[in-house]
């Protein structure tokens, strides 16, 4: 299905917002302003946006520890996200979740997850709700190449298959589970692994927004139509380390520079829409400026936001106790 200009602009806006957000978090973390563990999504923007453009608020996603991109692609408020990552009042999760647990149920974003493989069982539940209440919704489990080897993921693929749940499993294979190469850690072919559970799937170039969008559109349509779970294997790369502070000595020297120069999903997108005449460079430049200003403002607001107070420590544990 052809995307119209408005949709293309929205896709670029989201991808650029994610890139700006992550580059900014990288700078702020390096400068010491952000506490804790942070895992950045830069380089993978086409995956989150290509998939989530096929979803609405009634559809759920479960993310990974590398969750900022999924949040933005699912429509979460960027300023509230930044406050959350800074651990401030007014954060998306009131400063109690942080980068690894950032979530917004009202947007169908069931959370980043600090546990590798934590999300797929939860997303089976979201899919069961959609099926039971006949909402027409689907549920997407994003897993990394590390999470793809967790028992929770494999059990969830089996459960989704036997219960015919509306789940789309999206493997974001960015080449490394922490420091370990996915080419070594994944036994067999992911698409064949999914097929072993009776789940059809395909491998897609995760740098290519249009390829991801189209594959996701087909998979999600099929699943939404009640044909059971689907699978996508997105081959992609991350620009930063597993976590911020990772010296990435396991990568070849110059590996990321080459990826940025040759396989940048934003540059690939620009080239394609400009060459085909669908969008003009000036329109995209305007989005670049707009998103940079948005992220700058988000950081200023996050730094100015108050710290949570001592009373906040004790709330939100139970609905009642």
């Amino acid at each position: 299905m052809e995307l119209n200009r408005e949709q293309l602009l929205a896709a670029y806006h989201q991808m650029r917002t994610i890139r700006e957000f992550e580059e900014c978090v990288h700078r702020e973390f390096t400068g010491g302003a952000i506490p804790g563990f942070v895992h950045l999504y830069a380089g993978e923007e086409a995956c989150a946006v290509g998939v989530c453009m096929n979803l609405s608020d009634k559809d759920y996603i479960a993310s990974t520890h590398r969750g900022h991109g999924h949040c933005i692609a699912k429509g979460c408020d960027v300023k509230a996200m930044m406050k959350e990552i800074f651990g401030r009042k007014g954060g998306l999760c009131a400063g109690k979740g942080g980068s690894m647990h950032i979530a917004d149920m009202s947007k169908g974003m069931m959370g980043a997850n600090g546990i590798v493989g934590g999300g797929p069982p939860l997303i089976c539940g979201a899919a069961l709700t959609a099926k039971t209440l006949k909402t027409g919704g689907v549920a997407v489990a994003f897993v990394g190449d590390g999470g793809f080897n967790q028992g929770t993921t494999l059990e969830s693929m089996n459960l989704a298959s036997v219960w015919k749940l509306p789940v789309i499993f999206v493997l974001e294979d960015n080449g490394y589970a922490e420091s370990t190469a996915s080419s070594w850690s994944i036994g067999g072919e992911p698409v064949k692994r999914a097929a072993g559970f009776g789940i059809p799937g395909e491998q897609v170039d995760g740098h290519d927004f249009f390829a991801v969008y189209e594959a996701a559109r087909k998979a999600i349509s099929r699943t939404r139509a009640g044909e059971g779970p689907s699978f996508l294997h997105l081959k992609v790369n991350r620009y930063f380390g597993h976590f911020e502070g990772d010296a990435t000595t396991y990568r070849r020297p110059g590996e990321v520079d080459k990826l940025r120069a040759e396989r940048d999903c934003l540059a690939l997108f620009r080239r394609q829409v400009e060459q085909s005449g669908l969008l003009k460079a000036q329109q995209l430049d305007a989005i670049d400026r707009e998103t940079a200003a948005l992220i700058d403002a988000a950081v200023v607001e996050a730094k100015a936001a108050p710290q949570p107070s001592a009373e906040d420590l004790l709330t939100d544990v139970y609905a009642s106790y």
Partner: protein
Amino acid sequence: MSKKSFRQAINEALRDEMRRDPRVILMGEDVAGGMGAAGEQDAWGGPLGVTKGLMPEFGRERVLDTPISESAFVGAAVGAAATGLRPVADLMFIDFMGVCFDQILNQAAKLRYMFGGKATVPVVIRTMFGAGFRAASQHSQGLYPVFAHIPGLKVVVPSSPYEAKGLMTQAIRDDDPVIFCEHKAMYDDQEEVPDEPYAIAFGEANVSREGEDVTIVAIGRMVKFANEVADKLEKQGISCTVIDPRTVSPLDQDTIIESVEETGRLVVVDEASPRCGMASDIAAMVAQNAFKALKAPVKMVTPPHTPVPFSPALEDIYVPGPSQIEAAVRAVME
């Protein structure tokens, strides 16, 4: 009102809540039984028949047999709860928490807090616990204190059919994740239970008898033994209060402390292991809050710190029973 077994009481609560609220669903291994098989459907109704008859009434869409895949279906119950259903997942034996603990510990218990209060997780995880079935080390443990240790979970340990029905009703209506721990040796226990639905509030202990000399706090199946001992000792001039906390999280600390302030003596009876169990927790809580009232050291009646043995000869001395409780009460009276 009629005589009902512990099994029937739980079944009725599940049935009534499923009738009342279409969002209540059941899932677990063999909760109906026979899924995909050529023979009888609703073949098991749960491994010990607690959910028998529910699938024929509510259908396979609301009574879901699962593969043997606890991480997936317990997690799915949590995810379904967070998105609008009120699932009751059957984690057959509490010992199986080991294969799905992440979904309970790191997901169910914490979603609400991590999301700044913007998630509600009304899931019930039913599970059997307890020794006495000759089921050995991996099917007999009393692990409920492990759950009580985790903020975000509520943990229920009913002591009788009446308690089980009311507490299960509350568990399903409750908006927090609840671990509902059923002692497997109690399913055939009978007592008068109302036919109509009723809920028993969490965090409110039941004082089954009031006495002047000793406070006995007992949990689950141990409550029956504590009452038997109290009956016997009453005739011998030792008067006991027996407190059943009903829920070990939240724990009704006030009722226990107030009672110890009156009696000055405490015996805690718990089928869990002694280290970091409910007995040690309650003993520590009383030491902090009612130390000056104590006339004797607190006595804990628990199994030894061992796995549950298989041999009947060993299991019978492993599980606390009336004789150990009586000895403890006599000891604090000396």
